């Protein structure tokens, strides 16, 4: 993976930044869709290096943040059962449900396991035939193919004690929801590169046309992100609204047809609620009729889920770029990374958690960045 260093080269970054500074003549607000991009921006401090008027709005592409509360509560209920081994990606364990999280379930005796690949959960099912093994299948088009593969393999191998709790979401309907919201500040999108690795870029030209908005397919390393921003700024300044692929080393127009066939076979598109945003039509996947028996919701008739979301948390507005995290009354007081009211305060990819760190630092990041070339951070 040595090649990754080349995409963090400070000298090349400086050239891209110079171009952005030369090109931008007025304020622009653009949204990076994916939580992985947000993480990279915060991790490398890229937002501090942009011209004052270029604002990055952290989008809803953090699967941890947008998984709906009722789904978290279902996961907690299923994971609490004595006959269940509940497997999940690590960062879901701290996401608060209505009254607890998966760490608490584990501490109360639930068998909750962190896995690094969904196929590990399938291996656990084979090794524990007397238990029901459930994998929490969350995420975007990126994690969907491997999750689809688990039920495909479960059927092929005749593993019956395995099921998926599915809460998959799709990016294009979310972009549409943001563009049609009553208030929309987003003037360009940095599309999630790895989503396009799977899905290709075919879903986007229509969106650029319909909403007159530039969409730049963007990667995750610092130079990838700066190049995405640079191209978006050029489009905005020139009055263009096109689909551009700034991540061509990974993304082809066609995406990954094999993975897409797998998705079409295993999943079907449904309306899905996004935590903090609400129902977005056609924005999710669930297991198709053919694979329904592997659906944990179907297998464990979870009932009596009574969700109650914090009444003060305004993460939905944050996720849509309508509110800066520190403008929420609960920010930094009732709501902190140690006592999160909403998922945007949980993971380092969440906009609120990122702002929380910078607010602690006060104004010093701006003061210590060369020549005032910063956007406001907290």
């Amino acid at each position, binding site marked *: 993976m040595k090649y*990754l260093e080349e995409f963090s080269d400070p000298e090349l970054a400086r050239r891209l930044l110079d171009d952005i500074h030369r090109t931008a003549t007025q304020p622009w607000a653009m949204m990076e869709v994916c939580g992985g991009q947000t993480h990279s921006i915060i991790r490398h401090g890229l937002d501090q290096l942009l011209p004052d008027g270029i604002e990055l709005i952290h989008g809803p592409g953090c699967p941890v943040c947008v998984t709906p509360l009722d789904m978290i509560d279902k996961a907690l209920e299923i994971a609490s059962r004595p006959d269940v081994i509940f497997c999940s990606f690590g960062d879901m364990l*701290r996401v608060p449900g209505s009254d607890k999280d998966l760490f*608490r379930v584990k*501490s109360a005796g639930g068998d909750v396991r962190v896995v*690094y690949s969904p196929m590990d959960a399938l291996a656990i099912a084979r090794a524990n035939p007397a238990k029901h093994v459930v994998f929490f299948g969350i995420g975007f088009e990126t994690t969907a193919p491997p999750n689809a593969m688990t039920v495909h393999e479960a059927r092929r191998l005749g593993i019956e004690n395995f099921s998926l709790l599915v809460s998959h979401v799709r990016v294009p309907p979310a972009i549409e929801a943001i563009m049609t919201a009553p208030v929309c500040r987003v003037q360009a999108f940095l599309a999630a590169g790895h989503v396009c690795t799977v899905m290709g870029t075919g879903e986007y030209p229509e969106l650029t046309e319909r909403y007159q908005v530039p969409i730049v397919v963007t990667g995750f390393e610092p130079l990838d992100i700066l190049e995405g921003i640079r191209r978006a700024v050029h489009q905005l300044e020139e009055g263009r609204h096109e689909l551009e692929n700034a991540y061509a080393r990974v993304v082809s127009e066609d995406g990954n047809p094999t993975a897409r066939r797998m998705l079409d076979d295993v999943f079907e598109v449904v309306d899905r609620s996004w935590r903090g945003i609400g129902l977005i039509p056609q924005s999710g996947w669930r297991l198709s009729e053919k694979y329904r028996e592997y659906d944990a919701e179907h297998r464990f008739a979870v009932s009596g889920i009574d969700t109650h979301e914090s009444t003060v948390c305004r993460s939905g507005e944050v996720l849509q770029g309508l509110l800066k995290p520190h403008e929420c009354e609960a920010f930094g007081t009732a709501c902190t990374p*140690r006592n999160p009211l909403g998922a945007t305060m949980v993971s380092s990819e969440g906009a609120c958690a990122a702002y929380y760190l*910078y607010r602690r*630092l006060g104004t010093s*990041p701006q003061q*210590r960045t060369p020549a005032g070339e910063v956007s406001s951070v907290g």
Partner: protein
Amino acid sequence: MLPIPALPAPDFEGWTCPVPLRDSPQIVMGHGGGGAMTAELIEHLFLPALANERPDRLGDSAVLDLGGARIAFSTDSFVVRPLFFPGGSIGDLAVNGTVNDLAMSGAQPAYLSAAFILEEGTDVAVVAAVADRVGAAAREAGVEVVTGDTKVVDAGHGDGVFVNTAGIGLVPAGVHIGPNRAEVGDVVIVSGDIGVHGVAIMSVREGLEFGTEIRSDCAPLAGLVAAMLAVTRDLHALRDPTRGGLGTALNEIASASGVGVELDEGRIPVPEMVQNACSLLGLDPLYVANEGKLVAFVPPDHADAVLAAMRAHPYGADAAAIGSCVPEHPGMVVARTGFGATRVVDVPIGEQLPRIC
């Protein structure tokens, strides 16, 4: 089972920094992660119960005046799965962990105790192999194990072998090292590559293949500290960044000393294998465990000479100055990224990894 006496509940409401979902009546894994949750448990539950006003009570070891001598005293428990891993074992960790905690106060470690909690059903050969490693590690570190204990717990109530060690050592005259002694201007030096132990453990525990074997850096550091003290007795603070990693250790010292720490991210030695493994797993090497590294806060006048002495020692060959103490943002650690921007290096809340040691 005896009835549990009714105890006053901990004052969760009075906590300045609540743990996540703080109404939890149970211990969660995050309480053992070495991060903020561990610190809060110590600060708000253990310290009030064990009240004393010793200024060094939160250091890696206590330094006690006893019959005219200054004795460093420390204890540590070791729970690691698997028991044997590339580059070490629970036996090596048990010796080196306590030896290093003593060394971080400048002491020359002398004597250890070792207590073994064994799970019913564990192979005797495994216990023998662990004991063998304890002996070998003690010989390398130049300490003697002079007392011990053995207990057996029911099958299912332990993880094969748990080990506790305690140790004592003499602190030389004129040496006053403590987490609260860092000063503005101090140079921050790390003794070598970070994150190696944590990645080595993960590679065997999770069955992750990285192409080449990554071996734990588990090592005794008293000799390295002695080499540094030969340059100057005026070292301000030392830490071996185990659980919680370098990021947590730096935060603890910044906080205890009331100074800001500014890091030059590009100077922090992170081996390519560790960087790659962390990228793959979504981890930050700054929070991954080390078992044979230390971080030192050294007055600027002595920094170059101390760094040279470290590099001349086998356990400090890759030592590097990675930053300094500043008057701004007291109690916080800030890293300057390769692009000239800054980011806050915070304390992780719970555990970043499944249990390492």
